[in-house]
């Protein structure tokens, strides 16, 4: 263990942290309600109850929140700091990024004892985030395409016309359902990695998503 001083760095700006935790909350709510939509339990005692109605309403409210938050994060990739920038999500397109990526892969596959340090996102994580955002996009498109079928001819239905001409509703339902499991797969990986790097890097990895600060050997600007 080294006893060197670390520098306190402000990496995650407030909006980014908000987007992260709103997304987490929304996904928890969406998965819970989504699971009940996929496997409904007979909750109603009489036909005038509205159990499934409320579950779906909560799903849709969370869905709108989620969509706005995801869209905002994408916009933030163009106005936020360098760690939030869209460039961080494509490490394989720069020599330095590839080098860091290689080190990270070597560390994760237990081939080196050298814990790499990353001030912003670790490049392996951003690669996963990129695919996660594709899953988000899939969930949002299939979700709204299913949702809009209650009002065919409406603006939402018309603007999602390309979805209906390329996919069947049953296919979308299946993809939406499987997408949830893909997100679960990501989250298991993600929380584990955050925990691992928090322990190994000693940089306050997990708390950085709350406070915005990390602690690194590298001196910030």
């Amino acid at each position, binding site marked *: 263990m080294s006893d060197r001083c670390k520098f306190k760095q402000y990496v995650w700006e407030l909006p980014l942290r908000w987007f992260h935790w709103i997304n987490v909350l929304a996904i928890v709510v969406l998965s819970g309600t989504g699971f009940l939509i996929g*496997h*409904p339990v*007979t909750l109603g005692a009489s036909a005038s109850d509205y159990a499934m109605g409320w579950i779906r309403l909560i799903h849709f409210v969370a869905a709108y929140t989620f969509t706005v938050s995801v869209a905002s994060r994408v916009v933030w990739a163009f106005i936020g700091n360098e760690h939030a920038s869209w460039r961080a999500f494509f490490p394989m397109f720069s020599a330095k990024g590839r080098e860091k990526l290689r080190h990270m892969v070597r560390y994760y596959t*237990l081939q080196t004892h*050298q814990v790499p340090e990353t*001030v912003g996102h670790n490049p392996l994580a951003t690669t996963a985030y990129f695919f996660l955002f594709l899953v988000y996009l899939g969930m949002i498109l299939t979700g709204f395409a299913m949702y809009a079928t209650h009002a065919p001819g409406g603006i939402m239905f018309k603007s999602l016309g390309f979805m209906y001409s390329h996919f069947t509703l049953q296919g979308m339902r*299946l993809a939406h359902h499987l997408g949830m499991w893909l997100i679960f797969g990501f989250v298991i990986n993600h929380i*584990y990695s955050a925990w691992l790097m928090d322990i190994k890097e000693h940089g306050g990895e997990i708390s950085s998503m709350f406070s915005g600060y990390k602690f690194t050997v590298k001196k910030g600007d």
Partner: protein
Amino acid sequence: MSTTRTEPCNDTRGDALRNEDLSISQILKERGVSRRDFLKFCSTVTAALALPPSFAPSVAQALDEVKRPPLVWLEFQGCTGDSEALLRSANPTVGEIVLDILSVDYHETIMAAAGHQAEAALDKTITDYKGKYFAVIEGSIPMKDGGVYGCVGGKSNLERARQVCGGAAATIAIGNCASYGGIPAAAPNPTGAVGVKEAVPGATVINLPGCPCNADNLTATIVHYLVFNKIPALDGHGRPLFAYGKRIHDNCERRPHFDAGQYVEKWGDEGHRKGYCLYKMGCKGPATFHNCPTQRYNEKTAWPIGSGHPCVGCAEPQFWDVMSPMYRRLPNVPGFGIEHTADAIGLGLAAGAAGAFVVHGALSAMRKDKEPGEDTKED
């Protein structure tokens, strides 16, 4: 050859009734349909067209004046269920009236003529009334191997379809087979079956899918054409919006049970007997656009969900493949065995990921890693 063919309903018409100058209401009068029945028919059709009741008089007036268009009905690769549905349709045999108001010049299943004579009649109609007649196509069109899997009178269905649909004012593809290939097109589709629009892309086609099609929707489509002199507004799958503009799930009489959270869990259980929602039994109402809940069948008495069977989605393209399994809500995951539901696969994925990280975590915990220092810090 066709000794089993029974007397067709349109064969009893005398030559006078074949007179092109008679209007539809005159013909109906001669056929013994009372004015009252005619007006009743007009309001039924107005309702089927999703027009407000105030339109009924205009429909009646238009039908009073309009001349009967010739119609040819071709039977391709299908089960004749749509003809059956039409012939069995309701009182005052709305379907009968359609057959009566239309000059059905050719219908393989019900015409008296047979053989070359019949084929000649068809050729005559499509040449004499080019651009004016209606074509109704029932059954899919096999395309594989030059269309050899479906031939009538030595001509392939494809050849006939090109000839007949190409010269028609409008072609009505009746039933899922004619609309999208239907059951003959189900995987592995041995005959290369397709719907009319795909076989004859240039034709003006109105799809009336369903298995079978609801005869009321056929009547309404034809009346729409006669009254407004144009085909009804269609959706992205070529179906008239008046009949396919709403999801079954959104007009279903069991919907309150869906919203309440009351589901049939097993065939014949308490909920099934009480008419609860069939969602968990694999109902495809949430993915199917059709007016079954309002239009219904058999004199508006019944329809599948009303009778306790989940919707199988028969009005949607490729329903046999995309809506299966019939009694499960979600399709099987392609590439996996049929016993693998989406959840079994998802659970496997999550458990696999968790397992891998438990092992990784244990290994990492035992290792003495070197914390970031001057040499491994980010640069």
